[in-house]
């Protein structure tokens, strides 16, 4: 539609409201980052001092030197990579089957994966704790990775099925006619073309696993603590040290923000397929 509004009306009806909403969306984040670089004396005065007179990274150095944070980053990284590997490893073949074969129970199985995504976390977390306990998997990376598989697998199956569906089946057929085996076709024809989808799905699993708190807390103990669990325990431990807490928050938030911004455009397809949990 041709916009016939005057400059002033556009400013009042579009640009200012957008500015206002963007401020609402970004302010808590910016406030966290800003707090993390303020010296303690600038944090603990009231009325609030909005801009610090001097910028400091002392909270970051204390966090990295005096707490377990670096080790927690390592645990989180390992678990997220594990969740991506497990999620993609089992879901990509399954999605290929859903996309390329017609078999009895296909729709029902695909719907099953959709329903699984809607199951309340509390319904699974209680028995998973009992299960992991009896298998000795509590407080291990594998245990938490298995917990994260509960959301990683159904999501990836749906995402990847829609990606494979977008690739014409004639490609597979041409390769098969030329004498390639099914596995060669997948390896040399389908997977390279599906790579953008695989990367997007993988990043999304990574972000969700990195962000996850309940499974990570319930299934962890003294040795395997992810960053989210560690941060929550810091809140109790270093009660009023907001500089330290916000520094930890910033370090956790930045990688997922960047990853999420990279994939967000490509997520919409999977969103409407209804597979996104958070």
């Amino acid at each position: 539609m041709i916009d016939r509004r005057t400059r002033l009306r556009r400013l009042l009806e579009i640009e200012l409201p957008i500015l206002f909403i963007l401020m609402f969306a970004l302010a808590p984040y910016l406030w966290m980052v800003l707090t993390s670089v303020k010296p303690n004396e600038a944090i603990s005065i009231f009325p609030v001092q909005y801009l610090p007179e001097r910028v400091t990274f002392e909270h970051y150095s204390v966090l990295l030197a005096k707490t377990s944070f670096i080790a927690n980053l390592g645990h989180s990284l390992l678990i997220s990579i594990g969740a991506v590997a497990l999620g993609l490893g089992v879901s990509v073949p399954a999605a290929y089957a859903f996309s390329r074969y017609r078999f009895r129970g296909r729709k029902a199985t695909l719907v099953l994966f959709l329903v699984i995504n809607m199951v309340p976390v509390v319904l699974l977390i209680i028995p998973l704790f009992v299960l992991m306990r009896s298998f000795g998997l509590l407080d291990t990376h594998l245990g938490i990775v298995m917990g994260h598989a509960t959301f990683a697998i159904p999501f990836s199956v749906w995402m990847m099925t829609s990606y494979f569906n977008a690739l014409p089946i004639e490609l597979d057929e041409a390769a098969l006619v030329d004498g390639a085996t099914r596995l060669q076709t997948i390896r040399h024809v389908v997977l390279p073309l599906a790579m953008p989808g695989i990367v997007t799905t993988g990043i999304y699993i990574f972000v969700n696993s990195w962000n996850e708190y309940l499974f990570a807390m319930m299934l962890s103990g003294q040795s395997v603590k992810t960053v989210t669990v560690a941060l929550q325990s810091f809140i109790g431990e270093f009660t009023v040290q907001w500089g330290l807490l916000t520094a930890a928050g910033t370090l956790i938030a930045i990688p997922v923000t960047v990853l999420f911004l990279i994939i967000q455009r490509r997520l919409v397809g999977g969103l409407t397929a209804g597979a996104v949990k958070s």
Partner: protein
Amino acid sequence: MNRPIEPLLFLLPALLVTAAVVLFPALQTVWLGLHHYILFDPDNRSFVGLNNFVAILRDELFWISLSNSIIWVVSAVGFQFLLGLVTALLLNQTFAGRSFARALVVIPWALPSVIIGLMWTWMYDLNLGVINDLLLRSGLIQTPVAWLSQPSTALGAVVLALIWQGFPFFTVMILAGLQTIPAEQYEAAEMDGATRWQCLRYITLPALRDVIATALLLRIIWVANSLDVILVMTGGGPGYSTHTLPLYAFLKAYSSMDFGYASALSLVLTLLLLLAVAVYVRRIAREVFR
């Protein structure tokens, strides 16, 4: 039709892992829900039939949590939707820096619940919080308010944090829906002298009906199940003022170690959500298997 063994081989790993981490545990929840089962009291475990469920109906805390859950879902999803819709309509206009604004607005959605809890707890802080500071400066309040530690404001304060986290989801969904409306419809309406408001009322919103219904259902299910932001911000308190159903079930298991009762509670939650899940799954299945 291919040989049936091939797809099965491709599916098998996903099915096995899913059976191990979802299907079997879900069945075990049913089993646990029918038992008296305190984790660290293994000698006193027994089958109690539906006793846990009868106890739930008589449990005052269950009804408090249920009513908090309803307030939580209706207010959080309602405002997420309204703000998400307004944001999407605005971001669909042309203005300088539009793609930049579209990218930035999704940031709250990317963040973990623990960080959301941390940010908002810090902003709500009684003595040093920026929210009290701004409200005092603008004269809206005379003394600082302990937003998260008084029963009358705690639930609302957590809901606001969740609205903040969730509205970008609606924005992204609705923006995608807006791209599918043909421009000719607006041009024709404009020639007939329709106002902007009429265009919104008679073209945009009807065209978005399916997208909005899908997004609302998905969000209702997700928000009704979510407990991590509340757990991090208030732990269910003060008193029971921010207890919701999933949080109550979780605390029963995590703090009281009463896995039997907690399982029964989470089954009740699942039953209550079943209708929304059924409607949602039917819609998606219809779209996908057209």
